[in-house]
């Protein structure tokens, strides 16, 4: 019932927004994204969790001003993570996510309005996104602004939905052409959350005794990312990214990524990258608390740890009919290692670590 009224609200919002844009139409300089159809199979495995499934995306132009995007994404999750095997029973569940978006080009601006919903048996997340990208300085700079409003319903097996969480995301970014071979981008995002932000299944340890975790009902975070990509000549392309993240739960995080890509012949493109993430733990994280506090968690995602990823992508242009369509097949794999500095495996008493991999196989048709 709540979901139906939400969709009605989203459709009304979309309708009103598109109507006002139509009234404000004018000459355009920015192009709509290409028509594209993508199908992907994905699998993540690590730390006792396996999540796999298909994903689909279709974007189609409607005339020369509008394009519409539809997407579907599924995760079939089998969870026997360290949290689960030490405090509960392994389980399986499915997450389905659907997205619907509308792009509109007016003068030098690309406006996107998108709605998304993600559904699991015990968690429903609905979101509405509005993004505007504007070319300035003769196409040298693209400035973007975006806003996401999210509404979540939080549940627990056997109890049903018992609480909610609201989210507000504000983002601003700029992409700058530096030279004929180099681009740079800067992005900033502020996120506010309000509601049930914990996990009803997770327990914390206080004096060695298991207690339900308790986290604050609000969270406010900021993130700033710089990226650069450049062609060193002959399409030998290097890229780098750095993100700094901080929030009022006491987490500070640094994420670095370096990559290199090049063509082999005219049909093959290979890409390799290394990614490093390190973070401090939240103020209320404790592996085994020795005092009674209002907030306590043993969520290892909120602890102090680092992870390293090594990834490869290989893209093959299977067929190109100039002016009509092209088919590209991409395989991507990333190997990751997580090392925790505070979170221990209660079975061994040792600091916890695990290896994981992420694999994706994508067929993309541009038409």
């Amino acid at each position: 019932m709540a979901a139906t009224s939400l969709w009605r609200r989203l459709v009304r919002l979309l309708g009103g927004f598109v109507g006002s844009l139509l009234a404000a139409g004018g000459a355009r300089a920015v192009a709509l994204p290409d028509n594209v159809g993508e199908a992907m199979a994905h699998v993540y495995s690590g730390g006792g969790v396996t999540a796999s499934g298909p994903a689909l995306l279709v974007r189609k132009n409607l005339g020369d001003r509008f394009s519409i995007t539809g997407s579907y994404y599924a995760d079939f999750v089998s969870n026997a993570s360290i949290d689960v095997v030490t405090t509960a029973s392994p389980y399986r569940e499915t997450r389905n996510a659907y997205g619907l978006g509308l792009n509109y080009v007016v003068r030098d601006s690309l406006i996107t309005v998108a709605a998304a919903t993600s559904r699991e048996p015990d968690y429903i997340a609905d979101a509405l996104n509005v993004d505007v990208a504007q070319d300035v300085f003769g196409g040298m700079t693209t400035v973007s602004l975006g806003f996401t409003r999210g509404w979540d319903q939080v549940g627990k097996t056997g109890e049903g939905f018992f609480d909610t969480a609201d989210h507000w995301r504000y983002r601003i970014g700029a992409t700058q052409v530096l030279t004929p071979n180099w681009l740079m981008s800067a992005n900033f995002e502020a996120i506010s959350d309000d509601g049930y932000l914990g996990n009803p299944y997770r327990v914390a340890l206080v004096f060695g005794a298991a207690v339900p975790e308790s986290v604050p009902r609000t969270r406010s975070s900021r993130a700033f990312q710089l990226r650069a990509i450049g062609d060193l000549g002959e399409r030998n392309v290097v890229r780098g990214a750095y993100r700094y993240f901080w929030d009022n739960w006491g987490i500070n995080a640094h994420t670095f990524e370096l990559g290199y890509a090049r063509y082999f012949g005219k049909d093959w493109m290979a890409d390799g990258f290394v990614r490093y993430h390190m973070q401090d733990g939240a103020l209320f994280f404790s592996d085994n608390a020795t005092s009674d506090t209002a907030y306590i968690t043993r969520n290892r995602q909120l602890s102090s740890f680092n992870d390293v990823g090594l990834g490869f992508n290989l893209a093959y242009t299977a067929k190109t009919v100039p002016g009509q369509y092209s088919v590209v097949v991409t395989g991507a794999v990333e190997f990751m290692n997580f090392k925790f500095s505070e979170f221990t495996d209660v079975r061994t008493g040792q600091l916890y670590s695990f290896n994981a991999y992420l694999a994706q196989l994508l067929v993309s048709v541009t038409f």
Partner: protein
Amino acid sequence: MRGSRSYLIAAALGSMLLLGGCALQPWVKPYERESLADPIMNLQRSTLIGQHREHVYDVREGARGATGIQGTGCGCN
């Protein structure tokens, strides 16, 4: 007092910077952007692959946001 003066200076500098932008001419002409237009120069080559990677990181790391990728929302807690 010192705070309001700092804001004034920052506002003046910001205005100068923005107004200065009006006099800027594109220093990389459209015909010089062949390399930049190549698909290999895209910061995000596939929406699906990019969104899925971000989802995997969001679920397993404490940091989030500023990736230039729209999230789809999930039970990541």
